[in-house]
């Protein structure tokens, strides 16, 4: 049986400061080595100063993944030499002296399958390396330490996944969960990264590192299963090793790490005392936790009678569910859910579009009311929404500017219909015997009113006129 396990690294991008110093947690978009200080540069004599909120947010993640959260947290040093590590060790967590990492022994259901979480640990992200010149014959490595010290939560699962699809569903669930908890923005490049280990029946465990995207992760797992199966078919032993994902060639390559590299000399970080988390803090974190995605979905279905599929879409995306919660009232839940999941979705489907969107909850309230009171049609509402997202203008301005007002006034409509009938004499004659021609006439009326005519009313007026 195929066994797949994950090691997922999530940056706590929504924090203000790094894990051990007051530089920015979200380092993106700054000149290299400008989001640094003596602490995150590992200068001699500096000491790590643990960020309280990082501990709290990481604990919240552990709670959301149904992990045990220890009363005492300990930090350890993982020692190895690499230019992206300013101290040449990484401060991280282990459970060697009893349970002392942020969380452990959790479980979540994915696609009916139970996935066990082995451990969750809080640690620091290293800096970033840039290889000058071609990657094969690099002469010099450039280092940017802006990222060094960014709070990172590592989630280690048991090898409970059986196929790449389960992995994909789990990672989607995890992204949504992190977003819902407001701890991380999964859309940011590098905010969530995953290493994977794969073993097939009778074979040793193979780790794959260096996978750039979730899309490639699935490919890497597929490739690795195929590679291992073909070895097994030829009776070749599958050795325990670490392999790297080659992004260009879409294959895994043996990393051939030397034995000594596995020697990390872990020991307790003396500069950080063991952190005591009292039960009041744990209770507060639990109480402050936002409603889970599953519970939201169930509430939407049972309380608001929203169809299951719509509820699923609405609950799993924090942007949509927040919007929904702000706009809905007893009378409009279904309409609001519909507008969001059909009309709005295409307009704000990327992070960039969401950031640029000028839409406010007030806009949506007005829009739903306008549809309900027959002021505008659904079609017109869609056009108006697009314009509002773009410009942020008020609904009434948009209606008048784009001439979207719903032509439901019978006398006004009769005037327009009279005009159409006088221009379409042949069609009117045909319509008396062929009902299909009526549709042609309705189309003409719609053309003249830019789609704002009430279709039902139009039909009934035309029918009357033709019969008389």
């Amino acid at each position, binding site marked *: 049986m195929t066994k797949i396990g994950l090691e997922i690294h999530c940056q706590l991008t929504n*924090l*203000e*400061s790094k894990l051990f110093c*007051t*530089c*920015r*947690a979200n380092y993106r978009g700054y*000149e*290299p*080595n*400008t989001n*640094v*200080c*003596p602490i995150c*540069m590992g*200068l001699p004599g500096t000491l790590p*100063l*643990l*960020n*309280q*909120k*990082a*501990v*709290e947010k990481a604990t919240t993640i552990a709670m959301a993944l149904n992990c045990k959260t220890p009363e*005492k947290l*300990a930090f350890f040093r993982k020692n190895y*030499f690499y*230019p992206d590590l300013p101290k040449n060790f990484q401060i991280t967590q282990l459970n060697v*002296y009893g349970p002392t990492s942020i969380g452990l022994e959790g479980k979540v259901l994915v696609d009916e399958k139970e996935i066990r979480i082995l451990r969750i640990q809080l640690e620091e992200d290293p800096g970033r*390396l*840039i*290889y000058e010149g071609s990657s094969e014959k*690099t*002469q*010099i*490595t*450039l*280092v*940017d*330490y802006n990222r060094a010290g960014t709070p990172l939560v590592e989630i280690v699962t048991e090898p409970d996944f059986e196929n790449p699809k389960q992995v994909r569903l789990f990672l989607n669930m995890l992204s949504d969960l992190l977003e819902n908890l407001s701890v991380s923005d999964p859309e940011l490049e590098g905010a969530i990264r995953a290493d994977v280990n794969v073993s097939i029946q009778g074979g040793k465990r193979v780790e794959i590192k260096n996978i750039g995207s979730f899309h490639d992760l699935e490919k890497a797992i597929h490739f690795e299963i195929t590679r291992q199966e073909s070895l097994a078919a030829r009776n070749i032993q599958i050795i325990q090793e670490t392999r790297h994902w080659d992004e260009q060639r879409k294959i895994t390559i043996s990393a051939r790490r030397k034995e*000594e590299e596995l*020697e990390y000399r872990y020991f*307790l970080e003396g500069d*950080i*005392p*063991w*952190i*005591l*988390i*009292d039960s009041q*803090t744990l209770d507060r974190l639990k109480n402050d936790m936002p409603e889970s995605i599953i519970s939201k979905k169930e509430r939407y279905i049972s309380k608001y009678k929203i169809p299951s599929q719509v509820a699923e879409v609405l609950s799993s995306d924090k942007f949509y569910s927040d919007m929904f919660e702000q706009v809905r009232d007893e009378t409009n839940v279904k309409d609001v859910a519909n507008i969001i999941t059909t009309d709005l979705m295409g307009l704000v489907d990327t992070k960039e579009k969401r950031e640029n969107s000028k839409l406010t909850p007030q806009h949506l309230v007005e829009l739903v009311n306008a549809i309900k009171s027959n002021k505008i049609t659904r079609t017109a509402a869609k056009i108006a929404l697009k314009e509002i997202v773009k410009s942020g203008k008020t609904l009434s301005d948009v209606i008048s500017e784009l001439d979207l007002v719903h032509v439901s006034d019978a006398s006004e409509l009769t005037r327009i219909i009279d005009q159409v009938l006088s221009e379409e004499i042949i069609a009117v004659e045909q319509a008396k015997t062929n009902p299909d021609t009526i549709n042609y006439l309705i189309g003409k009326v719609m053309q003249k009113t830019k789609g704002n005519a009430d279709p039902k009313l139009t039909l009934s007026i035309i029918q009357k006129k033709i019969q008389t």
Partner: protein
Amino acid sequence: MILKEKIEEVAKLMRIELDDHVVYLDRVQKMIEYFDILDEADVESEKLSVQELPIKNLREDKHIPYEERIIDTLKNYKGNYIRAPKMI
């Protein structure tokens, strides 16, 4: 007895090139041999004693930019980057 080959391996792990083996290996071997006295200490059942700190005493999550450009006080830089030797 700790083998000198093992000690040389550790020196490599610690990223230190050795050239005078008498000054290093012999004395390191003596040092480590002295530590064998720890075998006689009756401490098997002992629990670790550690310093503790309540979570409320930890630093508040606040961005305070460092007032100086650290990079200007360092060496081996190119533009705003720190340079390191090539990686294999």
